[in-house]
């Protein structure tokens, strides 16, 4: 504390703005902001430790769990190289499988949900309310709860149509498409309701058909919510383990979730941990980029009631 400050104080004492300038600015700062920063930093430490650990493991040239510490001690790209050269780790195939399944599944299910959401938002018909309620109920039942039945169903589908049975990507995709319907229909209906109906009416007067209104007007206007629902469906599919592990059992046919799990299994070589971490890091680049760029929309989508899988 400087002399001038000390001398100034008694002068300023009776004045009103005392509080605002503060006797001890630091104490005031602590009371107002300090604890906030403290909480944030503490929570961030908890939140970031595992992520730092993965990064450290991915660049650890030894690649074993025992030689990995929180902060890297040495550095190398060996794990990433092995990810694409080790014949026992078809990471490229896994990545491709996940994308090939998740992208079309998300795309088609979002399209179908948007159709249904349009009907619920713009048409009035008998049975609309019960159907909405039923949809609300069904979205509480994730598809994997009936995993035994799905397994049996696709076992018999495979007898008639080998392209869509167990052990096929198409079969798994069909399940994922059905599973995402309820949630995204609800999200999208909520958004469609906020698009003024006067727009539809104006378009109808201009001679537009219902299909033209939907494809030409509603869909473009609803782009943000479609993006969010699509991303949530995509991420949910990428993260699914239970169905993917049942459907795709051949090593080169696995998805990322099932494939990466085999790398940390007890009977895998110890040095696979580094490869696993490198694979995790590459996988997260995709999801993190998507989340970061759409942060704002995702927050509003979440408050609308979506739960990430």
């Amino acid at each position, binding site marked *: 504390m400087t002399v001038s400050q000390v001398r100034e104080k008694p002068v300023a004492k009776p004045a009103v703005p005392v509080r605002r300038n503060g006797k001890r600015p630091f104490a005031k700062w602590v009371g107002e902001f300090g604890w906030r920063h403290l909480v944030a930093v503490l929570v961030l430490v908890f939140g970031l430790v595992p*992520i730092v650990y993965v990064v450290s493991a991915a660049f650890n040239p030894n690649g074993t769990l025992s030689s990995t510490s929180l902060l890297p001690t040495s550095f190398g790209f060996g794990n990433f190289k092995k990810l694409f050269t080790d014949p026992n780790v078809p990471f490229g195939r896994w990545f491709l499988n996940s994308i090939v399944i998740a992208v079309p599944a998300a795309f088609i299910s979002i399209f179908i949900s948007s159709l249904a959401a349009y009907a619920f938002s713009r048409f009035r018909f008998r049975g609309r309310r019960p159907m909405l309620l039923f949809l609300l109920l069904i979205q*509480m039942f994730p598809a*994997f709860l009936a995993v035994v039945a799905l397994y049996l169903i696709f076992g018999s589908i495979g007898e008639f149509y080998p392209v869509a*049975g167990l052990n096929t990507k198409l079969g798994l995709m069909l399940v994922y498409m059905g599973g995402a319907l309820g949630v995204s229909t609800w999200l999208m209906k909520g958004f469609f309701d906020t698009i003024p109906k006067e727009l539809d009416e104006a378009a109808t007067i201009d*001679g537009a058909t219902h299909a033209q209104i939907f494809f030409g007007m509603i869909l473009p206007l609803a782009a943000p919510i479609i993006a969010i629902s699509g991303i949530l469906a995509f991420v949910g599919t990428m993260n699914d383990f239970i169905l993917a592990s049942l459907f795709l059992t051949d090593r080169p046919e696995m998805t990322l979730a099932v494939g990466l799990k085999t790398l940390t299994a007890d009977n895998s070589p110890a040095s696979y941990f580094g490869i696993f971490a490198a694979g995790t890091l590459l996988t997260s680049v995709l999801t993190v980029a998507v989340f*970061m760029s759409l942060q704002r929309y995702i927050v509003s989508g*979440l*408050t609308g009631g979506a739960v990430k899988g």
Partner: protein
Amino acid sequence: MLEQRSRTAGSATAAGLIIKIAVLAVVAALAVWAALPLIAAEAWWGLALEAAIVAVVFYVYLQRRAIQLKYLIPGTLLLIAFQILPVILTIGTSFSNYGDGHRVDKDQAVEAIIAAGVQQTPGGATYRLSVGESASGELTLLLTDAADGSTWAGTEAGLTELPDATVDGTGRITAAPGYDVWDLAELNERQAELAALAVPTGEESGIKVQGLSAFEGTSTRSYDDACDCITDAETGTVWYADNEAGSFLTEDGEPALVGWRVNIGADNYTAVLTDPDIRGPFLGIFTWNILFAAGSVLLTFAIGLGTAMALNKPSMRGTKVYRTLMILPYAMPSFAMLLVWAQMFNRDFGLVNDLFNLDVNWYGGTWSARAMVLIANTWLGWPYMFLICLGALQALPSDSLEAAKIDGATGVTAFRKITLPLLLIALTPLLISSFAFNFNNFNAIELLSGGSPFRAGDAVGGTDLLITYAFRQAFGATTADYGFASAISVFIFLIVATMSAVMFRFTRNQEDVYS
């Protein structure tokens, strides 16, 4: 006239009409493609169902009155096929004994038991043997006729020709479409399952495995309609049919290896409620399942709310950076991070023991394993809670807080009496769905602990949830019991339905969603 029609018609423009015709043509083509295998298999019910679906689709898109149906039908069909039908089938299966040893019908079971008594007859066909599993997990003998090199697939149900199989130099099948062919190591490991398998080829003949080959022969066993029993002429054993349990039993009550699928009523349910070997562990799982879900919601909500309160200050510097970093755990692929956490809890080399200088065997004890899954699951879930809490805090009506401040309510009081109740009203539906999500959080348990710790000889692990327990009953290493697993699934359905009912009560006030 034309003007008016164009307003109600589905596709008045030329382009629209062309698209519509193209889509319906694709539907028709798909329908023909889908019908062919059904006709080949003479599955007339399936064909009728398919025709009905196609007829509905064509009707909906060609009519002009109920336009909403055109938008609803794709989703409805998909929802029925992959959400509603599985639920109904689960309920149906839960009343049966479907599973290993009870996969086939009674006639096939009789044939299989007779075939198991096959003795080689001189001059009978011999086969080179491979073994595989069909896509639906059925154990199958993949046979190459030693005489003419033709290839066959044999199951409990009988022998079918397998024309597209790939054979190696010795004539053994190495790959076949629709089958997962075992290698030698697996063949050795699962020899016991093979010994039990017999492929019937006729009334009293069948194929049996011997080492790496198989032979056809006649059986010493025969089925007698009068007593509904199977007699082995050589050993004198008699198996009587128990039509309620779906098995053939000797007089000592020893079941034959193959039974058949029957409706066993509510046995799977009563077993859960009355069988002490199942009831105790089941109640244990159930309690822990609720604890896990409630604990996860509470912990994530507490941390998320605390952080949101801390960052809900527009004049604070760095909030953007904090928020971006806090979304990071949420944006990471959750399955991979669960696997990372599983490694971090490794006893000898894991980060957790390392950082805190502990020597806890996390997977060893029930409660340490439970603490472990809760910690990891909290890590996964709190950013979500943070985001929704922050959103809800910013949407709170500022006038009630102002009024409270004027009335003299400060910090903690204002939070407890005003902020928290208002928040809870807004967030209850989300908290309930979070509870429901965690109640069935298969990934968190399967990828972290796999249900462990297991006590010796116990089918139930210390961290098992109902869903992981059901999954293991159906697909675990031990014998598959689809009936019992389905019964557990139905319990889960009921619990989830109850949660939904509670949630409806909270959302009923928000009537506007239906408007």
